[in-house]
Every structure is written in C-alpha cells, then in structure tokens.
C-alpha cells in the first residue's frame, strides 16, 4: 500500500491561532462577561455602596419625578419610589431566580439526561417520554398554572421555571452523553468495573460540561425573560417588591405620558439578556472550533 491518508483535507491544519482571531474571540467573551459582572455588582453591591433610597415606601409627593432629579438619577415612579433603586433591587430578584432555575435545572436535568443516555433501554425511554410531555406542554402556560397554584414569590418563580428548565437541560445532557457512550474511554471505564456514579462524575460530567455551560448561559437569558413575563402578569415577584417584569407592567399603564417608566427596566432587561446570549454564543463557537 502507500502512505495512509485519513481525510482528503484541502490543506493541513495550521495549529496556531492567529493573534487577530484570538483577540476577537477573547473580546467576544470578555465584553459580555464584564457586562454581566457589572450588572451583578450593581444589583448586589450597588445599593450598599451608593447613596440610593429604598426601593419601596417612597414619598407619594415625589411621584413622577423626571430623570436626573436631585437624589433620583432615573427619576421616580407613580408611588414616589426611586427607579434606579427599584431596577437594582429588581435585578437582584431576576438574577436570583435565574441562577436558582439554572442550578436546579442543570443538576436535576443534567443528571437525568446523562443517566438516561448512559443506561439506555427502558429507563431511557420512560424518562424521555415523561420529559417529552413536559416539553410538549407550552412553557409559559405551564409556568402560569404552577405559579398560580403556589402563589407569587421568588421560590414560586424558581419552581415554576424549573418545570421548563429541567426537561430542556435533560435533552441537551442526554444528547451530549449519547455521543460519548460509544467512545473507547467509556468502554474502558466500564470494563474496569468503575461504578456508574463514578463514570458519571469522572468521565461524563467533565466532557459534557462545555455543552451544558453554554446552554446554561443561553438559558439564563431566557429565564430572565420568562421571569419578567411572570412578574409582568403579576404571577412572579409580588408587588410592591420590585422586579423588572412588574416595573414594566406598572409602567405600561402610563406608557404615553411617562414612557421612561417602561424604558428603564426594559433596557436593564435587554442588556442583561443580550450579555448572556453573547457570552453563550461566544462559548459555543469557542468550543465548536476545537
């Protein structure tokens, strides 16, 4: 025979990354990550560090103040509450819910998906059928029903959104694990008699982590939007506690007179979601390029 030839590649790959590309790639991660860090810091540390009034219990005499009023940089809402303060405190709730749902979804959904793929057979069929039912269920309708039955609160929002998050993560994790299952190192691990939980933790988890983390980033954006929708409908964070969703809903009533009441929380929502989406996208292209 002759020299082995694996692929008819046009040109042999150049292993080194060019400086320009690397920088673009890094920027694609650094910029959204920095934005997210900024939002998190502002929401959690901002109210402690900056001279910002409480988000509730405002003076009704100070209602509808325009932006850049003394003491109220973004103005006040119809109840005389400081808008910036409400955005920062509302952001706390959005982020807590998003992180909560992501953690619940990733651990439960991720584990079920991986186990389902790892064991296969009847267990796999059963688990995936049950999740199919959840996925077939219109997400927001399900969330509304759950939120209604549990009564509005942060915990409710996390639980309700988890109904939607768990099956979605399970699908991703199952698909990722399935592609691993036939790999030699998995067979090797099994042949060595490694117990399943060890295979799961040592061999599967590290390998499916990139896909799950990417999905988590894209998911964070979606969860923040859905949480906003719940609060917008009055089923999420109960007023007078602030959340971006209920701020937008309150602002809707006076949209024509004071559109800024809607625009400020909308901007906060948009920038946060955009940052998560951009970060997820950059991570995806980073990992798929490998």
């Amino acid at each position: 025979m002759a020299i082995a030839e694996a692929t008819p590649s046009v040109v042999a790959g150049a292993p080194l990354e060019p400086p320009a590309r690397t920088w673009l790639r890094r920027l694609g991660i650094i910029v959204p990550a920095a934005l997210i860090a900024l939002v998190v810091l502002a929401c959690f540390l901002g109210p402690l560090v900056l001279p910002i009034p409480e988000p509730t219990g405002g003076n009704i005499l100070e209602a509808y103040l325009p932006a850049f009023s003394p003491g109220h940089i973004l103005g006040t809402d119809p109840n005389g509450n400081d808008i910036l303060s409400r955005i920062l405190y509302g952001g706390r709730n959005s982020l807590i819910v998003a992180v909560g749902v992501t953690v619940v979804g990733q651990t439960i959904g991720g584990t079920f998906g991986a186990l389902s793929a790892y064991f296969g057979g009847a267990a796999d069929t059963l688990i995936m059928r049950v999740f199919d039912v959840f996925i077939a269920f219109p997400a927001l309708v399900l969330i509304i029903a759950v939120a209604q039955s549990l009564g509005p609160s942060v915990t409710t929002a996390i639980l309700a959104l988890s109904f939607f998050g768990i099956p979605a993560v399970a699908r991703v994790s199952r698909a990722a694990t399935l592609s691993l299952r036939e790999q030699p190192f998995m067979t090797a691990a099994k042949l060595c008699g490694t117990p399943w939980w060890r295979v799961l933790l040592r061999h599967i988890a590290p390998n499916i982590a990139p896909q799950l983390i990417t999905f988590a980033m894209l998911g964070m954006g979606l969860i923040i939007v859905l949480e906003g929708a719940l609060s917008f409908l009055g089923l999420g964070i109960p007023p007078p506690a602030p959340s971006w969703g209920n701020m937008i809903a309150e602002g809707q009533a006076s949209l024509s007179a004071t559109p800024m009441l809607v625009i400020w929380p909308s901007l906060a929502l948009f920038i946060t979601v955009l940052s998560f989406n951009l970060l997820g996208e950059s991570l995806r292209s980073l990992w798929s390029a490998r």
Partner: protein
Amino acid sequence: MTAVAERQGYRGAWTQALRSPVSRLVVKRLLLAIPIMLGVTILSFWVVSLIPGNAAQALLGPEATPDQIHTMELQLGLDKPAYERYLDWLGHAVRGDLGTSPVSGQPVTPQLIDGLAVTSELLGLALIGALVLAVPVALGAAHRPGGLFDRLSIFVSMIGLSVANYVLALVLVLVFSVKLAMLPAIGFVPLSESVSGNLKSLILPAIAIGFPLFSIYTRFLRGDLVDQQQSQDYVVTAQAKGVDPWRVLVRHTLRNSSFGLIAVVGLNLGVLIGVTVIIEQIFALPGLGRLLLQAVSARDMVVIQACVVVFAVVTVLGNLAADLLQTVLDPRIRYGDR
C-alpha cells in the same frame, strides 16, 4: 422516453412511497402522539388541581355558609376522587365537551373556539411572516459568509433573540400608536367586520411575536446553510457541474437545510404559544391566552383546565405536523436511511 413514461416513473415512485416505510413511520408517529397527549392532559389536570384554596369557596365568596359550599362542591363533583374526575372529564372532552364554566354559567367549548380563532390568526401571521422574511435573509447572509449583509443579519437576529416579547410589544405601541398614531394600541377587529381593520389590529402583536421568531429562524438557517456550504461535498459536486452559486444555494443547500428548519419551527411552538398569552394580554386581543388569564384571576378551574389542555394539544399537534412533514418530505427518512 416520453413525458408519459416519465409520469409513470414518478407515479411508480409515489406508490412505492405509499407502500414503503413512510406510511409505517406516519402511523408510528401518530401512535406515539397519543400517550403524549394523554400525559399532557393528566399533567394539566394535576397542575390545575394544585391551585390552592377551595374552588367552591372561591366561587361563592367569603359570605357563603358551609352548607352552600358543600352543595357547590357536590355540584362541581369535588367530592369524587381525582382520577374519577379526570376520567369523567376526559370522557366528555373527547366528545368535544369541555364543561361549563361555574363562574359565567356558559359552556366552555364555544368560548374556546372563538379564542382559538383569534390566537391562530395571530400565530399564523407571526409564523408565516417570520418564515417568509427569514429564508431570503438567511440565503443572502449565507451567500457571502462574513460579508456585510451577513454581519448585519447576525447583529439584527442577536437583538431579536435578546429582546423580550413584552418589551418589544410596548416599544412598538410607544412608537406606532403613541408617537406616530398609525396603528391601534389595543383591541381587536374581527375579520368579518373589516379586513383592513383586522390586519391593523393584529400587525403590532404579530410583529412582537414574529420578530424574535424571525431571529431564531434566521440564525438557525444561516448557520446550517453556511455549515453545509463549507463542509458538504455534494455542494462542491454541484459547483463542479458549473451550476451558478445562487442556484446551488437554493436548489441544493436550502433544500437540505429546510428539513432542519421545519424541526426548529415545530420545537419552538411550545414557547411560541406561551408567548401569545402575554402578547394578547398587552394588546387586549380576545384570544385563548386572554381567556386563560381571565380564568386564572377568576379562579375558574373549568376554563383554566380547558385552556391549558387546548394549548398543550395544539403544541403536540404542531410538533406532530412538523415531524410528519419532515418524514414525508425528507427522502432520507422516507426511504429509511441505510
């Protein structure tokens, strides 16, 4: 060879398609949808039964005497065990009777049909609009990956993915209703009353739903097209025939990407239907979503139950339709890939 022979050839292929795996696959998919539908109804029944508080009490108000509440409970069948109530409900539901609202005293089914008509018109407009725009934009972007148009399409679709529907809806209202006074902010004009009025009342909500949808489709299709153009040898074969690049893109690449796009449309239906709830609320459209939210605030369990089930069934059916369409259109599935 003549045209007749050709037609016979095609007909030969058709009969083959009818007899061969395709029909079996369709039947299999249909059968598979049944347990999912049943599961969906059980889930919705369970979720609705979770809603706390006494439904009879909620209906009668705080002044009701225990006797009145008890009579009402009997009337609503709340004394029976859950599975019995479910089977009872299912028995009526398969016959098209979704019960009578204890709040309004009206039968639910006609209300649902009215609401479904509005919701489907809205969804249809948004879906078709999004697809009609997404396909040419994705083609234009994939024609020159990395080009100006491609970058622009990536930028726009990233915005579409990140803007919440309800925010977009309010921005649209602010611009087109409040500032420009071109379109109504709320309300619905039935098609039977005025065609232009109907379109005007639906255009903003359809954009609010359709733009993010357009972004999802564009991103997927553009990505898939570029992937195939760069990695698939059959694209090179087509180019090597001397076929011009646009034709290769449309006839070969788009053809194969369209199957994936159909799947994406199907998978997104669940999210999409949820979105209509909030959009109908904002624009005060008398659709299913609004019916659901009104029922939720009135604690009208029968209507909630019916709405949830209809939403779920529509989602399952939509998914099924996408699945079947793919099965019928994609020859790799149709003839069973070896």
